[in-house]
């Protein structure tokens, strides 16, 4: 390769798109490092505080797409207080000042502002794609800026964000001459939409492939929208209450019959029970179905729909489908790769919607299954052992038994053996979430067998520091470890400080870690940011003599090349 001119090497590198592979390429030699950095198009930054925008621009001056992630995963469940951080503003400002021709920005769990969106919309002439996942801090005014100023916008994809909806006219801010829309997802907006503007936008967007509506788009509007966009591949239905509006129903059915390209269906945020049947004609082509927000649809109607979906690869559903429904999935959806079953009753009310039987049925019937997220009331070791035998190909296995510390409901034993079977059989397991009654033994199994594991979520599990040590010592590929309400303390935290240099981050909340232990860690590892999040006892943390033994409520540590961040709020103490 040394005898090829740089342009040839660069051309070869163009075929390498995964950022992990590009990182590896850049380590081969100085020449490759240089060629790679000038040609990298897509930059991925898993923790926005691990590096600064200035250093990013110094290394990669020519990128077109930036992906940034902010808050830790447990922020999704309200464990990270408001104001903690993850502000995208400094990044947008730095990029705007530079000469980067940004075309795509993908943010996850970050704080975005209207000013930031306005600056973004004005600074990059070729900006094409904005994807915001689980972000907050902005309103529909920010969306109006994007609509008004981004002449070449292709994708506006808003997934599960908290957006202040001013019920304004942001949709009518797209100029009449603008026709390049490919993706429009505003399902997470709570307020009224300008339906006329929406219809005109959809009608003049021949390239529109993905349209996801919010709950304020009623049935008659949906029928009209669908009629003028039969090329749609991915549809998110908003409100779907079919009142005695037979004309709209007929229009909808007529429109659906033309939807030969439809592959993905979601939404039904407000849905009358017996409305799904209108979609039966297109079910045989569906590869992705997300009914996890359709709380008002009874299990029997879900089952009738799924019976038509023989090509389904991805299914997100509520546990109201029941074990019987999962058996139907198992016998119908032979191409299924990813399944998520969400809980309807969040407080373990007792009506056992799905149990270990549903999970076993799925594992037996769906040979291609590799990713699962399963919320249930009860589980047994025997079931997990059977699942492991049926499905050794799991890449992601996330099981959430709703009641903490719940044992095998038949034998009353901990679920160590069941999860042990999973990690032993699934040699490619990259992500694991455990739950139920678990002792240190399960972590011994994880450390021993889960050699490819990159992300592990632990809640209410384990007995002693040994549990956490088994994981830290055994899982060589661990990147993200998040632990809550488990009895792991300073001994485990401090055993191998260098381990954290190989990981992106560690989260520990309501564990046995003390302030003294965290301080010792921070001293030993200056290349880590060790953050203590303490909302309640700010003053007590300072008391002399006692502070060393004070238990830390929330600890979040991550490797970084830019030291302590300057935007931390008062309740975050960086050691």
């Amino acid at each position, binding site marked *: 390769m040394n005898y090829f001119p740089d342009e040839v090497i660069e051309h070869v590198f163009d075929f390498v798109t995964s950022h992990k592979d590009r990182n590896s390429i850049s380590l081969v030699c100085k020449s490759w490092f240089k060629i790679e950095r000038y040609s990298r198009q897509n930059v991925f930054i898993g923790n926005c505080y691990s590096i600064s925008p200035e250093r990013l621009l110094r290394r990669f001056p020519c990128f077109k797409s930036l992906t940034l992630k902010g808050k830790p995963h447990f922020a999704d*469940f309200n464990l990270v207080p408001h104001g903690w951080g993850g502000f995208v503003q400094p990044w947008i400002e730095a990029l705007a000042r530079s000469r980067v021709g940004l075309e795509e920005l993908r943010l996850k769990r970050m704080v975005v502002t209207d000013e930031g969106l306005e600056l973004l919309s004005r600074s990059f002439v070729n900006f094409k794609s904005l994807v915001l996942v689980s972000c907050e801090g902005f309103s529909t005014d920010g969306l109006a800026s994007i609509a008004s100023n981004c002449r070449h916008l292709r994708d506006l994809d808003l997934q599960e964000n908290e957006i202040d909806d001013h019920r304004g006219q942001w949709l009518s801010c797209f100029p009449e001459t603008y026709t390049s829309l490919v993706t429009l997802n505003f399902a997470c907006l709570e307020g009224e939409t300008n339906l006329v503007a929406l219809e005109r936008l959809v009608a003049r967007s021949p390239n529109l492939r993905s349209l996801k509506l919010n709950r304020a788009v009623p049935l008659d509007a949906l029928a009209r929208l669908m009629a003028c966009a039969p090329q749609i591949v991915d549809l998110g239905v908003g409100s779907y209450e079919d009142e005695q509006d037979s004309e709209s129903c007929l229009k909808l059915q007529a429109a659906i019959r033309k939807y030969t390209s439809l592959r993905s269906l979601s939404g039904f945020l*407000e849905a009358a*029970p017996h409305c799904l049947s209108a979609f039966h004609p297109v079910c045989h082509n569906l590869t992705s179905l997300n009914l996890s927000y359709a709380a008002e649809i009874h299990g029997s109607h879900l089952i009738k729909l799924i019976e038509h979906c023989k090509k389904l690869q991805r299914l997100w559903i509520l546990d109201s489908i029941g074990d019987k429904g999962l058996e139907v999935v198992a016998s119908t959806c032979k191409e299924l790769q990813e399944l998520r079953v969400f*809980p309807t*009753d969040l407080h373990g009310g007792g009506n056992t919607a799905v149990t270990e039987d549903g999970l076993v049925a799925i594992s037996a019937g769906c040979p291609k299954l590799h990713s699962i997220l399963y919320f249930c009331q009860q589980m047994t070791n025997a079931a997990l052992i059977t699942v492991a035998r049926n499905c050794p190909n799991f890449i992601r296995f996330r099981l959430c038994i709703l009641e*903490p510390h719940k044992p095998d409901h038949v034998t009353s034993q901990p679920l160590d053996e069941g999860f042990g079977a999973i990690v032993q059989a699934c040699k490619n397991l990259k992500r694991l979430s455990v739950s139920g009654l678990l002792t240190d033994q399960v972590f011994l199994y994880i450390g021993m067998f889960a050699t490819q594991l990159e992300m592990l979520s632990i809640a*209410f599990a384990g007995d002693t520091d040994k549990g956490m040590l088994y994981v830290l010592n055994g899982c060589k590929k661990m990147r993200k470890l998040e632990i809550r309400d488990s009895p792991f303390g300073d001994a485990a935290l401090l055993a191998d400080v260098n381990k954290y240099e190989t990981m992106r981050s560690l989260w520990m909340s309501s564990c046995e870690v003390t302030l003294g232990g965290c301080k010792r860690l921070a001293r030993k590892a200056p290349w880590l940011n060790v953050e203590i999040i303490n909302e309640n006892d700010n003053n007590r943390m300072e008391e002399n003599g006692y502070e060393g033994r004070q238990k830390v409520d929330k600890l979040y540590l991550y490797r970084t090349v830019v030291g302590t961040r300057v935007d931390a709020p008062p309740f975050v103490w960086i050691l």
Partner: protein
Amino acid sequence: MAYEEVINELNLKDTELRLGLPGTDEQAEVSCVKSNKRQFHQSNDEHNLKEEYPPPPAKTQIVGWPPVRSNRKNNNKSVSYVKVSMDGAPYLRKIDLKMYKNYHELLKALENMFKFTIGEYSEREGYKGSGFVPTYEDKDGDWMLVGDVPWDMFSSSCQKLRIMKRSEAPAF
């Protein structure tokens, strides 16, 4: 000897002081909330646990548990609002079924809302004594008479309410 026989027959287990839900023989399982005291894991002694920490109430809410995003939690809550229509009324109303604990409270609220009276319910003959009959649409799409099934079953399956004029409801 006689004394011992008496003691055995008395079944002193009934009078034994123990911590646990009434009617359970087994050790009650500590089902949730890890308290800040954290003494349980340091001593790791189940016997101590039983004496120091009584089992918490069955549905204690823990912060951030289950691990479900808040927008999903909010979605489930909205299920309890149902539309109420009344024959002859110009517009529909919406009520939150979770606000009521039984049929009596619900019917009283409906009477107040629409300014009418409902009449006496009996299993055999439905509602007698007024010109109106309360009906509801269940999850299967069938129209049922309000009051036949237990309240909990009704409130979880009711999708819509319709107060029908008796003249339009011969079956009831």
